[in-house]
């Protein structure tokens, strides 16, 4: 994947910098250890990050995995080191789709998959379209670009709470426009409870997510040489053909990462549904992260909650692994 040249150059320059000063000849025999030290330096520099990563991510994950094999309820949380082991019990409860807990988890999983696919697709589509339209310079482009990034820059809580106000049944802006002004509905709709909550959640998620797609695609577009478009135009290619034959193929590596990142963020999103709906989301918008939170904190059954989290982790690992495998396989022959 990486080309050897830059590393060699870097080592060479480091070598030049570390040219022994005159009079250091006595240290010549220790040159071997010096090389080892030099080789160890990057690892040493990485160490603090590694330790923090261990502490912040891996240790809690490991603890979570251990918890998933224990019967951790209100009777044992205070002294959870001694909570009884339950083997695969928590996992069995989570994946028994005939029983209520498993059934609810499966429902929540399916809702989340549907929601994520729609949200990622819309974010990508809107973000890419906006980036392509902003590709050519025109008056006010900078202003528009900045404006587009606002949802991404706003703190999540503040942004979503504003949406809560807008989605309110009695005094919300959404109903005011749809019902009072445009007369599209017979009566005011509920957005924060019932079936419509799915669309409310999707709207907020896309509103919040597309600027990121826009930002990344805009960056990706800067790398496509203008000459390609000029040549295509000379050959008689229309705008749509240029987008299809030049823009999209050139953006492929960018999109591969973008879609994966959007997928993971959306699938795991906790803040948006939590701020929109509180601790118990309506069935139509019961995203898995809030569902797991509810399974652990509301019923105080942290063992089952951990088991569900581990299952979610495994699922995301499989999806991510599979995605990377498929996308890199597509790339290799092209390079080879």
């Amino acid at each position, binding site marked *: 994947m990486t080309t050897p040249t830059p590393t060699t150059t870097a080592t060479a320059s480091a070598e030049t910098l570390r040219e022994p000063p005159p009079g250091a000849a006595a240290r010549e025999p220790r040159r071997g250890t010096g090389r080892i*030290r030099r080789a160890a330096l990057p690892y*040493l520099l990485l*160490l*603090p990050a590694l*330790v*923090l990563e*261990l*502490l912040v991510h891996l*240790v809690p994950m490991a*603890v979570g995995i251990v918890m998933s094999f224990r019967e951790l*309820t*209100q*009777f044992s*949380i*205070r*002294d*959870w*080191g*001694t909570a009884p082991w339950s083997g695969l019990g928590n996992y069995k409860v989570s994946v028994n789709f005939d*029983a*209520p*807990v498993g059934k*609810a988890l499966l429902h929540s999983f399916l809702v989340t998959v549907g929601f994520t696919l729609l949200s990622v697709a819309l974010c990508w589509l809107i973000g890419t379209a906006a980036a392509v339209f902003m590709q050519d310079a025109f008056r006010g482009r900078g202003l528009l670009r900045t404006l587009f990034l606002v949802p991404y820059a706003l703190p999540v809580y503040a942004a979503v709470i504003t949406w809560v106000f807008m989605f*309110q*049944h*009695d005094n919300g802006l959404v109903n005011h426009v749809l019902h009072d002004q445009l007369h599209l509905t017979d009566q*005011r709709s*509920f957005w*924060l*409870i*019932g*079936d419509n909550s799915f669309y409310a959640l999707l709207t907020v998620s896309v509103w919040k997510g597309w600027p990121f797609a826009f930002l990344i695609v805009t960056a990706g577009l800067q790398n496509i040489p203008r000459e390609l478009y000029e040549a295509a135009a000379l050959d008689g290619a229309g705008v749509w053909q240029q987008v299809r034959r030049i823009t999209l193929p050139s953006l492929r590596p960018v999109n591969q990462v973008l879609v994966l990142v959007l997928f993971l963020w959306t699938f795991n999103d906790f803040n948006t549904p939590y701020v929109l709906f*509180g*601790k*118990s989301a*309506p*069935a139509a918008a019961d995203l898995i992260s809030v569902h797991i939170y509810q399974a652990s*904190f*509301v*019923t*105080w*059954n942290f063992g089952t909650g951990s088991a569900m989290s581990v299952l979610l982790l495994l699922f995301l690992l499989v999806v991510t692994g599979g995605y990377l495998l498929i996308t890199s396989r597509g790339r290799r022959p092209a390079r080879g």
Partner: protein
Amino acid sequence: MRRIRAGATGAVALSLALAATACGGGSATGGGSNDSPKTLTYWASNQGASIAVDQRVLGPELDKFQKQTGIKVKLEVVPWSDLLNRILTATTSGQGPDVLNIGNTWSASLQATGALLPWDAENLAKIGGKDRFAAAALDSTGVRGKDPAAIPLYSMAYALYYNKKIFADAGISQPPATWGELVADGKKIDARGKAALGAEGANPSENIHHVFVFAQQRGAAFFTPDGKPDFTAPQVVDAVKSYVDLMATDKAIPTGDAEYAQNQSVSDFAKGRQAMLLWQSAASNLTSQGMSADSYGIAPVPVISGTPGSGTQVDSAFMGINLAVFKNTHNLDGATRFVRFMTSDAEQKILNKAYSSIPPVTSAQADAAFATPADTVLKSTLSASAAAMPQVPSESQFETTVGTAVKNLFADAAAGRAVTTGSVKAELEKAQQQMPAA
């Protein structure tokens, strides 16, 4: 280089040590100490109209305590939405406050975690003994037969608040005493273009308090006598359905209230948009929202027939706040002194007056400050017609699961879907299945 390596080793060791101590908190089984006798951390629940109000109310009292004892109390007012989670986290880590407020209905649930100091005879003697407190208040301090997990601090009851002007305009001369009267009055109020009754349909805790009373009035409880969930008994189903029917069929509660969860029904009442409100100790809240005390009346919550009393005439859950000491406290003596201070006659009068609640300490209750018409209604409810919420370890889970079931049923009613005995039973069945196997 060697120095770097030593530094790196040190960093790793330090972080591992930190991690180990952080994790180790969970296995602390000690019963508290007196390591830091000069400070206390106190988590107060949000009793006033806002957190700032609580800080203003409690601040001077904590200063008084410091003057008396030399102990500095670090106050943190924790919003209700976070309180239970914060307590659970503190329980798990062993790193928590020294003294904390809990909703009295959680007493048995938190007692089961073993995180709270049990108030045995010796500890109770330090705060003046059990007899200082109203017996009914002590019923909500943990599982019966065990030492209380917390001490009653403020007592509250539900009452019917009604807007005098809307009632007069609709030609209603007195507040409804039965649910039948309430629905009939609601129709008259509705005809004048006002909402009849408010509800926090999307707030599980509010829902649960009401359906608990509805169940009591039908002679039912949500738990069997030996503490097992029993949510699908016919009377329980009927109770939940009747409460949701106040919106679905009786049209007393406006459909918009189905999504209320931030006390919007209180502000609707305070702003004169809605004629009635079932709330616990609402006076100071209404005042802070600009509603003058003479513009509303207060009456007992309706019953099915007759007058409020015990058994099927119960018209409120025995609500309130309890004060608990965290077992892992580093200032056990100070924490006990603080509980003694907060439950002293003088403090009970000041604090309960500020929060328009009723002192659970009987000697303070008799004070003239608690003789307003509102307090008289609340006092008689607390002494004669309020029942303790189930004191079982899974109470907290019950509140959330059944409260959420009612939220879903309200959502159905608001969307115009029929709320039937079958649909109510299905929701309650789902709630029961989520309960821990007790």
